[in-house]
């Protein structure tokens, strides 16, 4: 898929403003910003697989500040406990009562850094929160905030001292993508911006949390025609039949692809999904939800390639009504 085919001419005006605002901090990452917003609007979460220092934190912070949301960062370490993520009830000796202390996950926007460095137990606590939208502490269920967006990062799994995320749990993330290094000119631009003072300090909210909630509602109203739904199903079920795949994407993937497409169509200023939305989002939605055969892995086939191959072989619905 070509990089520039999605033009932003007809972009939703508020979203356009939001993207422009974030771009004052993050240089040349329009697509990633847009995807993050799509995840925010569709209630999904993002898994970034990236090396440190490419601007993940900046992206998340800038987004949080732009919508006036609170932001927490969790640095996952091997000794991090589940309660460090979800929060803990501590006994207040003054009041002689247990008092709940909110964990970082109880924020609107959470950056879960190097999620694969911590123990599976702590990972599970986070993932459960992503899935359920609530945490249960000491038998008491506490709802998480809304909007709620978790951007988890993981180091490429070859690095030593990591606990790879269980594949079955990866599909709790709506998208998986990389931010990647900036180009030379972008990096040059970036240096110019941070020369005097960091632009993140000056960033102002352009939308309120209420705006985002309203948008979330509107995005859910975006329609998908039968043809588009068929296209989604064709794509997802093709992952189950592909010869290099041992475990294909689940029906949850179909739902994810559709709701992401709705949010994306909304961002594009449309009230209906077109196949382009689905086709554009499919790699981000599907590639972390499939498991390849081991011989496919050996022949250096990657998940991206498999998804790309599937997209190229599924015909786009079009024709007489």
């Amino acid at each position, binding site marked *: 898929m070509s990089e520039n*085919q999605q033009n932003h001419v007809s972009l939703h005006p508020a979203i356009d403003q939001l993207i422009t605002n974030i771009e004052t901090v993050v240089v040349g990452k329009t697509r990633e910003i847009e995807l993050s917003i799509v995840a925010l609007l569709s209630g999904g979460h993002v898994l970034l697989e990236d090396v440190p220092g490419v601007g993940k934190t900046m992206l998340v912070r800038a987004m949080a500040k732009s919508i006036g949301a609170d932001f927490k960062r969790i640095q996952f370490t091997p000794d991090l406990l589940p309660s460090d993520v979800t929060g803990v009830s501590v006994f207040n000796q003054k009041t002689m009562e247990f008092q709940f202390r909110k964990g970082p996950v109880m924020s609107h926007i959470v950056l879960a850094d190097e999620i694969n460095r911590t123990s599976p137990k702590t990972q599970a606590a986070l993932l459960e929160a992503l899935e359920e939208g609530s945490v249960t502490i000491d038998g008491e269920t506490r709802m998480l905030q809304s909007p709620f967006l978790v951007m988890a990062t993981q180091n490429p799994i070859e690095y030593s001292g990591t606990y790879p995320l269980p594949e079955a749990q990866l599909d709790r993330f709506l998208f998986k993508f990389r931010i990647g290094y900036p180009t030379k000119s972008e990096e040059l631009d970036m240096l110019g911006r941070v020369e005097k003072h960091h632009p993140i300090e000056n960033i102002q909210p352009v939308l309120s949390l209420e705006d985002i909630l309203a948008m979330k509602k509107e995005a859910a109203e975006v*329609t998908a*025609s039968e*043809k*588009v739904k068929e296209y989604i199903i064709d794509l997802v079920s093709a992952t189950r039949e592909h010869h290099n795949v041992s475990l294909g994407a689940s029906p949850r993937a179909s739902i994810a692809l559709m709701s992401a497409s709705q949010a994306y169509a909304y961002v594009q200023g*449309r*009230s*209906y*999904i*077109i*196949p*382009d939305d689905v*086709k554009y989002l499919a790699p981000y939605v599907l590639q972390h939800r499939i498991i390849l055969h081991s011989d496919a892995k050996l022949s250096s086939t990657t998940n991206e390639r498999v998804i790309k191959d599937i*997209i*190229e*072989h*599924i*015909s*786009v619905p*079009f024709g*007489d*009504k």
Partner: protein
Amino acid sequence: MNRGVISYSLLHLFVYILALFILWEWLRPIPIVTDTAEIGWFVAFAFVSAALIYLRIPLYVMLPLLFLFSLWGLHELFGEGTLFSREGASAVIWRFIEEFRQNASVIWGGDFSGLTNFFRTFLLFVLISLITYLLYYWVFQTRRVFFFLLATIVYITVLDTFTEADASQAVVRIVVIGFFMITLLHLSGIQEEEQMIGRRSKTFVPAAWLYTLIIMATAAVAVGMFAPKPEPQWDDPVPSMQAFVTGDGGSETVSRVGYGDNDEELGGGFIQDEGPVFEALAEEPVYWRGETKDVYTGRGWETSNEDFRDSLTYGAEGQIDYYLYDFIEPPDFIDEEDVSRRSAEIAMADEAEFSHLFYPGQLLNAEIGNITAETGGETISGNDLDFQTDRLNGRINASSAGADAHLQNYTLDYMDVTFPIHELRELSEDDPDGITGRYLQLPDDLPERVIDLAAELTEDEDNRYDRAVAVEDHLHGPDFDYVTEDVAVPGEDEDYVDQFLFETQEGYCDNYSTAMVVLLRAADIPARWVKGFTAGEEIENGEDMNRYEVTNANAHSWVEVYFPEVGWIPFEPTQGFDNYADFEEDFDIDIDDTEDENDEQPGEQENDPFLNEDTADNEREGAEGIGAAVDRFAGTGFTELIMITLAVVILSIGMYVNKHRILRRVYMQYYSVFKQDKTFDAAYSRLLWLIGDRGYPKRSDETLREYAHRIDKVFRTSEMTKLTEVYERRYYGGVTTDDDWLSNKDRWEFMMEKIN
């Protein structure tokens, strides 16, 4: 394909030269259909201006050069002496300035017919240079020549059909050149596309292409030439079309119908008009003589002067005062039994308006009382009519109160003579002065080769009769074809007989009879040209008398040769017709046989000249193969059919080749009718289909939007994306508005135009 960039490949130069040859075909018929003398200068000018345009000479150099060249041409065409002297150059320049001034005011006044030939010629030079530029543009820029070729074919066909221009050769040339032009242009297109995707083809024209091309062109031309071509199944519509346009029965110079008065411009087709002229009751089939003419002008016949006697007078023996024979009582050498007096009755058809008599042989008597005529709507008896006999040309005219009366019924007595050939051979050749003075006339500019041919034909014969027969035999020979359609009209400087004898060698009675008279006169034998009707078709067979119907198609002309002491004896040079005069071969031979031979029904074949033509054609084809086929192709009745077939074939090929364009037109017309909003979906699908057909189909994994981007890139537009957005909204979003079609129709039409 990037059509904006001019490629200077050798291939295109070659095609450009071919295009100039096609332009030449446009110029070729000009001398025939106009009074332009020659086209050499125009062709040369076309090639020079093409060369200058091709070399991309700057305009400020090219225009003066072309102007000088056209001045040179004007000087050669209109001026005198050499241009390359001070006088010559200044003369032409001054003349040009003067003409320019004069014609500018004529043009300013809107009187275009007042333009001088000099200035018109200059304008033609200008036109030619413009056309050469246009050809350059077609070949190098648009890379399309098909419509130019088609226009050429139409032009040539129209000229061939409606004028004397003969396009049978031109069509072959155009088809061959056209094959090469279209194929080479197509080839160059493919080569360019190959280069764009990185495959280079270095050869000028791949050998396989060249062989295929040559084989195809040869095969097409060969099939066109040798394939059997049936006769047209309908009447030739051209004369009636011409009549419709010109308002009369076709102009006299182009074709002849029936028996006319004016024979000054002969040539052109003979129209088979079956309209009745009269019915005759006669004992045997005879030729009906109307009048003779004596002055040959090189283009036709005139009468030197008219010697009318005031009334239908009778000589001593009751004979009308017009003498075909030099005797009243047959001379000794003609047996009495060979001279007989016969009678005939004629009833003119209602639509025939002839004021003079038609009679067979020497007219003896016309019963005045039995003659009826009509004038001003009234029927008059012969007693009330005035008759004038032209003693020179034998026209016996009836009039009433000074106005021609239209004869209705009359009865005639005439003398029927059988001539003994051996006696004719013995006759002296001392012609009276009155005869030689009038009947040896020939135009001063008669081509020498006619006289040479006459001498050659007659040199071995020692008497007048055999010389006349030798000339007659020559015209009956295989060199000549009897045709009635597409008969040539002599050009400005051509002689009618010369053209027939040496160039066309095909024609009908006028050609044969005139040629025989001229050849005889060239051999010092007095002869004259007779016109009238052949015997006609026998419609009733009686005991003594038969009834014959004579139609306009029976109009005929033949020859009379003067024999001293005998008089004027008819000869029949036209192929397929028999002399109605009887000759006795020899007393020793059984007379009946001879007579039978000569008595063959003259009416038998003459009504059906096509029959003759067919037999002659078949024989020739068998004997001469290719030559005959080429002749035939170049020939007569088939040409229109071939032209039409060719035009249809070329048109079909053209439609196939241009099917996108034609379909596009059809769809554009079709959808423009509709105003409903839902038309948009159908029109959009049609557009996709046409683009796919144009070579850019949508891949199945491509979304409409991706495809639209691609198409917009190819055609350098942005309209496809906009159209697609509307379609997406309607198709995927289910959101429709009332004016989706009307407000996007322009975009759609723009794309339809763009994809070609």
